[in-house]
């Protein structure tokens, strides 16, 4: 069996190698400092009182008994937040966004999901804080909840926000609605496209609410110093994001807030939103002491940000030869309690794998009584791909066409105009499809109760701002400072790009993730952007170092800078071969030639390279129990350039694994009162190691012209194809077409029964 392989285009010295990660020893020896390891003298522990109701008006809160409990130092409610004392008039256009942000963190007038914070306590220890929770009296007027995206869209559905009106393509709706936004894109002539088709299929699909399932729950320690400085130590994907949110909710200038990102135990998009930070900050201000809060797993499930459930209708027209003539979709996703589902990305990504002349996509962002959804790896795209790639599989079956050949025939390429109007730059979908077609997995035989499915996926990847500072020490080692939190190997991959650019060894670069006071603005580690954008900042900062090193050599040799070149870690005179200094030797002379050298760069690049992936899944379905086992899985993906192939493989495998969980078993169960019934890892069934085969990977490298080493993002697109690949495999194995995720054993049995099998 083939395992992981890299189809390399260019060989570099450090880039593309697999060095040991700088943070590895600390992590495997348990010394790495995570949020919960923050222990300042006199730290109080906070607990958050959460609404037991999914939808309720908060009539009043009496905290006096809790405050009187010995050991309790402070109790806060939404009344303690700046929003409570600001008027609509003062806030003007900012009113709604601040109300949503402040209320999301702590509800003022209404609890909008089970687990919505309504009060918080700081006490001498967690047990006292927990006991005090029972002493807070909240008078709720319980309202009817709605937790289904389509029900929430109906006229007469319980309304979450009395003043929310649909933004329908720029027009504001007449009456209040749970539909926050309707958006639409189109291309070509849809009617003409469908008229040209020989075969038109149209189906509906649904997916359930799922959670990222990062292993480390949210945590924060806050200390509001008496000089007015607020310090936060937290587990986050974006320290500057936390700083911005906290500063805005607490009405502080950003520079008054300093965020130190601790090591992070997973995020996958779910650790972008700040949940506990402002709460701990206000409690710290009230008590004058540091305040720490940790979520339990149940709080994570009920009150952090899962990925939305969705309803999708897809219609595709094709010629008998397989050429697609028209595509159409309508997708609705639930944002949870406040607007902001990723439905826009869903409709933009839905058909991005295909070159089709005629198309129309419509998206609906809908609020309902669930926790406000957050990003989860390629937000929106996995749901959309499940629908589109499943329907394409049905079309291939009808046309009796190989699913990879079908996709090759219709694949998006450089120059393909996408539905939102952007024209694709150099992309690697065709290359990925060819590799998948020629892979021995795809060529192997499959039969019996087994089935094989394929699917592809797209994610645009992001650029955005990053800053890097690097200092040359007198021993020649470069200290590399960055604002990007290291989740999947950032320290290593940025150090590699630095070393490659400077022509020095990987071990001579010492990367550190620093706090928000120590580096320029850096956007989140997310959007598959970090290796690309922070990498670019590091490359630019290294170039800055190189030119400064050249001027030092010019000073030493008393010659013109233009006569000096920097080649592979050596500074040398262009014509005098005698004049030559290695990076290390020159570093030793910095102290006597003007002091240390620091390079720096801040970037906001726009040359991100789109990501494409193709997955092949084999499954066995037990005909008696309906249980699906994934028996073989191959993930093919265009990385542009894999800076550290092991971490790219890790991303591809991780995405595939999370996708397999999403496909087969993961879902939030809600009861009639809108309460999540399975907020534990026992009943929220993520796959365990026994549920998975080895995920084989093939990294394809079609260089991104927007990055010196060709980097595209890799973290997200890996979760886009697996649900459809697994669903298509189940359909091949059972003859049942599964259009609703997760594809549980129970649903497979029901489909059997509907088809007359017993």
């Amino acid at each position, binding site marked *: 069996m083939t395992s992981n392989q890299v189809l390399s285009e260019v060989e570099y010295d450090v880039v593309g190698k697999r060095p040991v990660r700088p943070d590895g020893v600390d992590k495997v020896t348990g010394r790495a400092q995570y949020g919960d390891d923050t222990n300042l003298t006199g730290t109080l522990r906070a607990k958050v009182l959460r609404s037991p109701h999914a939808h309720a008006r908060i009539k009043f809160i009496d905290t006096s008994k809790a405050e009187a409990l010995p050991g309790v130092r402070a109790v806060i409610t939404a009344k303690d937040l700046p929003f409570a004392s600001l008027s609509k008039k003062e806030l003007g256009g900012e009113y709604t966004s601040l109300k949503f942000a402040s209320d999301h963190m702590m509800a003022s007038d209404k609890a909008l999901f089970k687990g919505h914070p309504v009060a918080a306590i700081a006490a001498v220890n967690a047990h006292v804080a927990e*006991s005090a929770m029972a002493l807070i009296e909240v008078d709720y007027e319980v309202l009817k909840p709605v937790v289904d995206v389509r029900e929430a869209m109906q006229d007469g559905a319980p309304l979450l926000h009395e003043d929310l009106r649909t933004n329908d393509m720029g027009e504001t709706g007449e009456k209040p609605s749970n539909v926050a936004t309707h958006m639409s894109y189109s291309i070509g002539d849809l009617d003409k496209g469908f008229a040209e088709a020989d075969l038109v299929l149209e189906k509906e699909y649904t997916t359930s609410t799922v959670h990222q399932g990062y292993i480390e729950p949210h945590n924060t320690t806050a200390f509001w110093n008496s000089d007015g400085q607020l310090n936060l130590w937290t587990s986050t994907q974006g320290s500057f994001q936390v700083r911005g949110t906290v500063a805005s909710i607490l009405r502080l200038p950003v520079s008054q807030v300093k965020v130190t990102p601790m090591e992070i135990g997973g995020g996958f998009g779910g650790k972008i939103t700040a949940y506990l930070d402002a709460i701990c900050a206000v409690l710290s201000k009230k008590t004058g002491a540091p305040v720490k809060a940790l979520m339990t797993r149940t709080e994570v499930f009920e009150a952090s940000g899962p990925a939305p459930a969705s309803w999708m209708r897809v219609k595709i027209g094709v010629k008998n030869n397989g050429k697609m003539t028209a595509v159409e979709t309508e997708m609705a996703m639930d944002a949870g309690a406040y607007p902001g589902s990723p439905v826009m990305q869903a409709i933009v990504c839905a058909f991005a794998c295909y070159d089709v002349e005629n198309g129309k996509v419509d998206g609906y962002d809908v609020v309902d009584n669930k926790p406000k959804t957050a990003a989860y790896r390629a937000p929106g795209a996995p749901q959309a791909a499940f629908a589109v790639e499943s329907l394409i599989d049905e079309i291939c079956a009808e046309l009796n066409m190989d699913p990879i050949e079908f996709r090759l025939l219709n694949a998006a390429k450089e120059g393909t105009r996408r539905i939102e109007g952007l024209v694709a730059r150099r992309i690697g979908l065709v290359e990925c499809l060819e590799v998948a077609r020629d892979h021995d997995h795809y060529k192997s035989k499959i039969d019996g109760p087994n089935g094989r499915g394929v699917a592809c996926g797209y994610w645009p990847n992001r650029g955005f701002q990053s800053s890097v500072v690097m200092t040359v020490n007198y021993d020649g080692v470069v200290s590399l400072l960055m604002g990007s939190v290291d989740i999947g190997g950032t320290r290593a991959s940025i150090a590699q790009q630095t070393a490659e650019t400077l022509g020095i060894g990987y071990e001579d670069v010492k990367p550190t993730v620093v706090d928000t006071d120590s580096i320029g603005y850096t956007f989140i580690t997310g959007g598959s952007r970090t290796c690309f954008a922070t990498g670019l900042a590091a490359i630019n900062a290294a170039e800055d170092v190189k030119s400064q090193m050249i001027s030092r050599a010019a000073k030493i040799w008393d010659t013109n800078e233009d006569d000096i070149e920097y080649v592979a870690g050596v500074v040398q005179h262009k014509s005098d071969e005698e004049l030559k200094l290695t990076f290390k030797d020159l570093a030793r002379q910095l102290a006597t030639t003007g002091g240390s050298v620091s390079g720096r760069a801040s970037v906001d690049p726009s040359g991100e390279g789109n990501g494409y992936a193709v997955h092949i899944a084999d499954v066995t379905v037990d005909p008696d129990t309906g249980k699906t086992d994934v028996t073989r899985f191959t993930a093919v993906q265009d990385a542009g350039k894999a800076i550290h192939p092991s971490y790219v493989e890790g991303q591809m495998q991780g995405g595939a694994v999370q996708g397999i969980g999403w496909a087969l078993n993961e879902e939030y169960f809600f009861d009639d009162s809108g309460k999540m019934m399975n907020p534990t890892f026992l009943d929220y069934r993520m796959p365990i190691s026994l549920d998975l085969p080895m995920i084989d990977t093939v990294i394809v490298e079609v260089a991104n012209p927007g990055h010196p080493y060709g980097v595209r993002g890799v973290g997200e697109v890996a979760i886009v194809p697996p649900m459809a690949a697994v669903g298509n495999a189940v359909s091949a194995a059972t003859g049942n077409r599964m259009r609703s995720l997760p594809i549980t054993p129970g649903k497979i049995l029901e489909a059997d029964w509907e088809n007359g099998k017993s």
Partner: protein
Amino acid sequence: MEPFDFISPSSIEEAVKTLASSGDQARILAGGTDMLVQMRAGRRTAPLVVDIKGIPELNVMSYDASKGLTLGAAVPCYRIYQDATVATAYPGLIDSAFLIGGIQIQGRASIGGNICNAAPSGDAIPAVIALGGVCNVTGPNGTREILCEDFCTAPGRNALENGEILVSISIPAPQPNAGANYLRFIPRNEMDIAVAGVGSAVQLDASGQNFVSARIALASVAPTPVFAKEAGDSLAGKAVSEEAVQQASELAMAAAKPISDMRGTIRQRTHLIGVLTRRTLNNAIERARGG
């Protein structure tokens, strides 16, 4: 989790006395793999926790080919499956001991705790019922025996009276040409609660072609584990055949009274009881024949 008092008695008498005088204020702790989870989740409070792992009789595991197995109520799963003699004599029990949790859990979790916890899904209970296990109980009024199938009375409730503890479980000596098997259905491959489970035990005649007797018990299809007596009895005296197995599985399905919840529907669970009864009977027959 609220603070609690903790004691660890070293004799049955001491434990019974403490429990009898504390009433519902006290909770017995064996491996704690149910109890501590429930306490942390706030589902149970226990002002007084009585750890019974220090009592010698509760740690006994003695096997005698004629008398059978005496399994102290606090013996953890790993001790059972690591004992070669016990593992050979009762493969049907080992099926359960292996299923409960993972390695770490099995280092603590006891069969006694599984039975006393009285979950409809308790994986050891159908296996012990199928093997004809008896619960040996001691309380303020002395000792008594309760058939395992009579021990669980409702979800989380058992037949113990105030002050009583489960001391051990007796499992009769394995008969010649006997075999047993426990299987459960879960959507994942480990770490899950049975959607349905079946324990079957059969005794065949010397030819291996006819049933002498059989016992079948079910998990997760009623408020308590179910002893499907008619299903097992239907096999007694019959020739081993697909029809006989099929018929027993239909009787087992009839004995199942499941509910629909997030883990499975009535129809799915009933169907699974049929599937698992056939599979466990066939495995038990194979084991009885020495396979």
